[in-house]
């Protein structure tokens, strides 16, 4: 087992955000964290990454290289900086060499000429691809993706998930991601962990745990999911 979480509780500013949560992630799995806004999904990821104090056990079976795309990392944050794509890659440590950058850019479907472009002048899809290459370049074992822009068409009919699927064929990756998109949960992930503000949590394979009743318990409203077959 790559990650084992037992009875995890997280308090922030005196408020209990996560209560007695337990789950496991195996190597090579894709796990989605599902839940309404404010349920503590990002808090959970930030706790797993060691940014927040917690009670309970978080056990990694060994030290892993982590890649993380935090929530809200969007183009607006770099738009006002005189920052080229090359500059953005040079902020990584150790600084990757150009051949390595080009290799990863091509993995996400971008050409070398994007390197000299200002990050603010990229299209939304190009920027998402650059982010994906950026996070992959240190060769992480585990990717944490906090709501990567689901709706965005990366161009050429690809979404961030079809891209990730393609990358996983080339690299052995474990992925823990947050999304609201139920299509992604069914079509892309091995396991789903649902959390809600009311202590209710479920954990298991998507088909097993995502019953209409469970979805209603989590989101507090009637939801019905029609799977596209």
């Amino acid at each position, binding site marked *: 087992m790559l990650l084992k979480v037992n009875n995890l509780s997280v308090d922030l500013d005196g408020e209990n955000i996560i209560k007695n949560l337990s789950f496991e992630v195996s190597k090579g799995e894709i796990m989605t964290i599902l839940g309404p806004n404010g349920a503590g999904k990002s808090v959970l990821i930030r706790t797993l990454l060691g940014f927040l104090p917690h009670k309970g056990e978080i056990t990694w079976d060994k030290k892993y290289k982590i890649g993380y795309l935090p929530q809200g990392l969007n183009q607006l944050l770099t738009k006002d*900086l*005189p*920052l080229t794509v090359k500059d953005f890659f040079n902020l990584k440590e150790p600084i990757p060499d150009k051949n390595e950058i080009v290799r990863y850019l091509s993995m996400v479907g971008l050409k070398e000429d994007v390197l000299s472009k200002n990050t603010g002048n990229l299209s939304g899809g190009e920027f998402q691809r650059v982010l994906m290459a950026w996070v992959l370049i240190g060769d992480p074992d585990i990717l944490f993706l906090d709501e990567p822009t689901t709706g965005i068409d990366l161009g050429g009919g690809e979404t961030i998930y079809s891209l990730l699927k393609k990358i996983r064929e080339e690299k052995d990756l474990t992925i823990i991601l947050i999304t609201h998109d139920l299509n992604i949960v069914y079509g892309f992930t091995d396991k789903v962990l649902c959390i809600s503000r009311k202590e209710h949590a479920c954990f298991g394979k998507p088909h097993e745990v995502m019953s209409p009743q469970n979805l209603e318990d989590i989101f507090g409203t009637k939801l019905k999911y029609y799977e596209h077959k």
Partner: protein
Amino acid sequence: MNTQLLLSLISGICISGVAGYLGTLMLSKKMSVIAGPLAHLALPGAAIAIIFGLSLFVGVFPFVLLGTILIWALERKTRLPMENLTAIMFAFGVGTALLILPIDKADAALIGSINTISPIETAVVILISLSVIYMTNKMYSKMMLTNIHEDLARSSGINIDLYNFLYLLNIGLVVSMGVYLVGGLITAALIAIPAAIAKNISSDLKSYKIWATISGAGATIIGIFLNYFYNFPTGPLIVVTGACLFLITVSFKILKHE
């Protein structure tokens, strides 16, 4: 060229060049408001230096350092917005200075005294400038990544609190030196204006850093020579020159986009 002019030029170029370079990191909203209050905290220190006949730096640096540590610690402990904390520091600095600064001798504290800088002070300025450049270089990528997204930086193993502190320390050093050049009232301009000029004309990070350093130093050279020939006070001349350069680059930018 006379020796005093040479000393003024050397120290002026060092201070403003370093301030310009460091200023390129002041991109996030959180950081851009800090230099002003820190510079105003320099005023009580400058007042003490003037009263006791000490070198300005000796009086100013402890106050700025204390202010730096206070802002850093208060922000972490109180989680108050940086704007709020800096406003408090700002008022504290000016208020204390008004209480103790001998108004008839206030020139040096208010508008700088680069024209009378001594050889020893110049040597100290060179030494501190080199140290600030070294430290800023070391932390540049980390601070830039932190500016973009703190969690992205954290997940890359960057100790954000430590680097924020080192960054503030560097600002403290530059502000303390800046008081020599332009005085406590307008020191923040030394840090803010060159970065704004460079941003208008740069397309990548390297040219951004270079232009900020050059425009900072350039405004100072022009200011010192204008003072030499026309005898207006140097500090305000430097800052006004910088502001004019900024307006020129804004015009170029607008023309380019039309």
